[in-house]
């Protein structure tokens, strides 16, 4: 491609700027577009797996402590209900924290997804918390992505949020320090 053609493409918006050049070429056209079901489900599964591992680890630590301190006869098997509650709590914290701070949870980071508000920014704490509750209480709502004309899940439609492909890691800018006056 000649430089003049390149300029014309960039001017018409048909070609991406090199700003997101850390993204492989074949994935660049998808950046900023709402993600499909599979990617989002995989991200959620990664988060779920991470929380499950955490719950298992916490249960193991608790059992060991009980064994050492209370001197139980053998390691107690924790109650499944409490583990589910603990897992749900951790997942809620994980999602709220990730969506409110950077728009990404660990699963979202791995799959290159970001949750953004209607204005394209990260969600506020309240929105992130409510959305996390919705996702926990009604996970099947994700399936709405299949039929939605704009790739929105039930939660997205209700909370006016979007889950977009965004592979570029953006680091929040640190405000410049004002040099002290002599």
């Amino acid at each position, binding site marked *: *491609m000649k*430089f003049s053609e*390149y*300029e014309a493409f*960039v001017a018409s*918006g*048909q*070609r*991406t*700027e*090199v*700003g*997101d*050049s*850390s*993204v*492989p*070429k*074949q*994935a*660049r*056209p*998808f*950046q*900023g*577009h*709402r*993600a*499909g*079901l*599979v*990617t989002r489900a*995989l991200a959620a599964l990664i988060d779920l797996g991470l929380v499950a591992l955490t719950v298992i680890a916490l249960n193991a630590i608790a059992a060991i402590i009980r064994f050492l301190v209370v001197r139980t006869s053998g390691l107690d098997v924790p109650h499944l209900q409490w583990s589910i509650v603990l897992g749900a709590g951790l997942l809620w914290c994980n999602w709220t924290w990730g969506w409110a701070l950077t728009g990404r949870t660990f699963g979202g980071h*791995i*799959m*290159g997804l*970001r949750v*953004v508000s*209607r*204005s*394209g*920014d990260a969600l506020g704490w309240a929105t992130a918390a409510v959305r996390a509750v919705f996702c926990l209480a009604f996970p099947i709502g994700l399936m709405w992505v*299949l*039929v*939605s*004309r*704009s*790739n929105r899940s039930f939660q997205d439609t209700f909370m006016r949020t*979007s889950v*977009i*492909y*965004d*592979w*570029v890691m*953006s680091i929040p800018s640190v405000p410049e320090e004002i040099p002290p006056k002599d």
Partner: protein
Amino acid sequence: MLRSVVSGAASTVALGVDRVVSGTVNETLDRVVPPVLAAVLDRLDLTRLVIERVDLSRVVQATLDQMDLTQLVLDRVDVDRIVDKADLERIIDRLPLVDLANYIVDEVDLPRIIRESTGGIATDAINAVRIQSIGVDQMITRITDAMLLRRKARVTTAPGEAAQSGAIQEDETS
């Protein structure tokens, strides 16, 4: 016989007269015409006359049409000397350097080279998984839209910075 002798003599005489006369006339003209012409030209403003009476643009156009200017410049102009004398800084100031740099980076796919030389296996694996999942997303979307008999493509553009750089035109599904 006599007639031929007479005509030969006549022509010889005519030639002689002609020589004498023309020599004298030419000599006179050489003496008289230049100062007269100089005097006439001194009284005339030739430049103004040409400007007023000659269609200069036509003359120039016709001249240019007959000349191969490029070849003329190549033959007669020392381009290297001109380049040596050129103010390169002013030329560089006029160039869209950032755009040029972006173009070069994009054409040689410098990010890919950097990724391949610095990125680990994990990065490659994650990118591969992401790309594959995007592909599966697209496939499922197409299948679903086909089942729902949708003709218009989905509108997936979302607000935000990333949306400005992305430009996807999803295939129309039937």
